[in-house]
């Protein structure tokens, strides 16, 4: 049974979230992040939002 991580766990991984969303972490940290995100709906949503934002920010200027 999975237990949803506490928000202090989210705080611990907060600074790595952008790199994780953009797949730019080394394997060891990626694994650690994946383990947290897999059980954390809040961080799953954050990662999805960061990826959407990252894609939108790449669009050329009007």
């Amino acid at each position: 049974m999975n237990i949803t991580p506490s928000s202090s766990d989210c705080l611990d991984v907060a600074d790595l979230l952008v790199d994780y969303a953009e797949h730019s972490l080394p394997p060891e940290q990626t694994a650690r992040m994946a383990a947290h995100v897999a059980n954390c709906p809040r961080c799953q949503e954050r990662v999805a939002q960061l990826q959407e934002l990252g894609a939108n920010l790449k669009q050329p200027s009007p």
Partner: protein
Amino acid sequence: MAAVQADDLDQVVPLFERYQGPLFNFLYRLTSDYETSQDLTQTVFERLLKYRASYRPGQPFRAWAYQLARNVHTDHWQRNQKMRTTDVVEVERKGALGGAAFRHTAAVDREQDLHEAMALLPPAQHEILVLHRFQGFSYEEIADMLGCTAGAAKVKAHRALQALRTIYFN
């Protein structure tokens, strides 16, 4: 890039001309206003001439020009703040974000929403995102401009993106 002689107009002017377009784009990203961006780009040029003695040979010209542009934008932003009575809280309360959260359908709307969300960031966070995401500056180059380490620049850029995420999606 060849070092510019600090007080050599013959070198400063062509260099400015080369960066005029990117500097305008940078300022346009920050202000979302065409005429303002033209005015501010002109101000950057004037300051470039005025302060060209402060340019250290060997320093990348681009970083120096952007440093001036950032200062020009900060001055403009502060002038605007004084004239404006609305603050971020008030803007949000009035729903001036244009209902960003409710219309993520058309690409044009999305672009517009993103602009509006970015404009709500504190200027330092706005700048770092524009420099990194739109102008293609590396963390090392941004670190030079901000006078911090590349690691610190990266943390700042990430926090700015997180702040933008909160504004854009909430």
